[in-house]
């Protein structure tokens, strides 16, 4: 049942992405409005999907790749909707809805059966750790998108070749502010995510830090964002450099999230989680 809802959610994200892309290409405000309502509708469905999955599984549904991708997409969409309410940045939707869609499409392609019940999933640290980590990641995803938009807009301003996209993209200043906002939210969340993970590890395995690949890569990403935050506050990094670092940081995060699970193995692999 939750799988069916998941697929409907995916379709509404697909439709929202189309709406936003039509807006970008043609500048039609109706397309943007349709896109916005579709992504809102998709988000509500997504909430239902997660709730249903929670009852079906009996644990916070972030225990396998499919569930994690879905949860990540949910966080990104939710935070985007908050930003959209606050700042009304329609173009952001045009970049973000395809990202959410991509995560959902991968999530749709991987095995979707429930994880085996396992004692470590019973701990309260589990939902706390994954929620903090994914919320932080979602803010960084938006910082990443703002970074991409910044580089595009800067490229057009510098080269003086203005395409239709130029007229829809927000100003450099807005994008840079967005980058900073996401950083100030994402960084504390990520830090708390790592700390709660360490606490969970201590209660389950008896040690705080074991240098498994996921932990190492999370730490690398954390350092990238720490450097960016420090650079912004102390040295006056901004604009292009901040945008580039937000992009690099997010690529590290993506590797931490997907690459480590798919390419390397360790305590965080979903097999280890489900106790197989």
């Amino acid at each position: 049942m939750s799988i069916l809802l998941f697929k409907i959610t995916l379709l509404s994200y697909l439709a929202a992405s189309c709406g936003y892309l039509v807006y970008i290409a043609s500048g039609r405000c109706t397309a943007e409005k349709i896109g916005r309502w579709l992504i809102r509708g998709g988000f509500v469905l997504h909430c239902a999907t997660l709730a249903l999955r929670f009852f079906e599984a009996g644990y916070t549904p972030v225990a396998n790749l499919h569930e994690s991708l879905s949860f990540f997409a949910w966080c990104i969409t939710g935070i985007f909707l908050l930003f959209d309410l606050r700042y009304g940045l329609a173009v952001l939707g045009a970049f973000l809805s395809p990202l959410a869609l991509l995560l959902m499409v991968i999530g749709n392609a991987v095995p979707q059966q429930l994880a085996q019940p396992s004692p470590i999933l019973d701990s309260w640290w589990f939902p706390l750790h994954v929620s903090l980590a994914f919320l932080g990641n979602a803010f960084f995803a938006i910082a990443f998108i703002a970074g991409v938009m910044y580089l595009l807009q800067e490229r057009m301003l510098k080269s003086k070749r203005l395409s239709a996209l130029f007229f829809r993209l927000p100003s450099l200043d807005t994008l840079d502010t967005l980058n900073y906002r996401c950083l100030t939210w994402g960084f504390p969340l990520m830090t708390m995510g790592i700390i709660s993970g360490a606490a969970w590890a201590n209660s389950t395995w008896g040690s705080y830090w074991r240098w498994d690949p996921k932990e190492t890569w999370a730490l690398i990403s954390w350092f990238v964002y720490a450097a960016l935050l420090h650079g912004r506050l102390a040295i006056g990094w901004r604009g292009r450099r901040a945008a580039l670092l937000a992009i690099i940081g997010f690529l590290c995060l993506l590797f931490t999230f997907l690459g480590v699970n798919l390419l390397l193995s360790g305590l965080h692999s979903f097999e280890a989680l489900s106790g197989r």
Partner: protein
Amino acid sequence: MQIVAVGLNHKSAPVSIREQIAFAPERQEEALRQLVASPEILEGLLLSTCNRVELYACSHDGPAAASRLKSFLAEFHGVSEESLTTHLYEFHSEQAIRHLFRVASSLDSMVIGEPQILGQLKDAFAVAEGCRSVGLILTRLLHKTFSVAKRVRSETTIACQAVSISYSAVELARKIFGSLQDRSVMIIGAGEMCELAARHLVNHKTAGLLVANRTFERALELAKKFDGRAVPFNDFPDYLAQADIVLASTAATGYLLTRSQVEKVIRQRKNRPMFFIDIAVPRNIEPAVNEVNNAYLYDIDDLQNVIDANVKERGKAADKAEAIIDQEIGRFQRWLSDLELTPTIRDLQQQLERVRQQEMDKTFGQLQTLGPEERQAIDACTGAIIKKILHRPIAILKERRHDMSGEQYLDAVRMLFGLDGETEDKDQG
């Protein structure tokens, strides 16, 4: 009732013709009075700008009105009608309405999307209202026109992109800084171009204006005008760090500002971006400044390219605007046909005639003894009564159809006599 438009514009006539038949503002009222004095013209409107001269009229006889408008244009300016005919265009009914909508929405302008034309049309309408040359129909048409123009502006991007040098500079600055509020501007050189661009920037509530000019007095003068501050010309690089937007337009040969200077300033500003606008020829700012991180340099050609891109973008929006106009023309025409007086008068006469026939049949049924002569007399008598009763209402309806109250009279008549069929049954019952 027909709407007729006759005129010429920058596409149909060279400036030598346009200037001959342009109406000076002080003579427009006089022209309108003369125009509506002609029997074919019921209502008239006159639009005269540097790019177009157009007359709009409302008439029962379209072709006659059009030829009157043409001869009027020639007579009023004392030029021969033949010399004008090749340049004049003439539109009737739907075409005339469409033309007016397109003009007001700035689709027919030299620079598509320029905003002045709507203001000029509003002025023209105010003059016409002032001398009562417009009545019910043109007033309604003009109000509709203004709302169409507003719809086109708000629903398409036609007016969004800047098409003049100083506008496009402001637009670019907004793409870099977002809001220009609290940004400060430095202008180097105090020529006319600088002043124009400064005015546009200051309109966006910028925080401060610094003026540097070789003759310090002129700098002071300009600074005073915009509530800014004059700085000595030779020291201007020292003040650069305070400026977000730098506008250069001096007659200097050789660069006033080099890449290494700008690099230093950006470092001082902790990488806060700067926007350099160089509208001088030869250029005042070294082109390599554009390569510095967080510095953006546009010279006069770059701005021109931005304008070209904007004009192209507007062309696309124009198609959407045409669709809006099509829709609105339909609405106006429906109103116009509803307005038609004749059907109301016809309905009124038919309604009373029906009552008369019913009552006569009843009477004749009761008075079987009447001879054909008496019947004829009663018929003629009742017919005359109805004619007399209707005489004044119809006269008033005809008289008032040209002003705004005409519509109300029409409504009143339809209601009082039950012409729309609602009260008819009650009357019979």
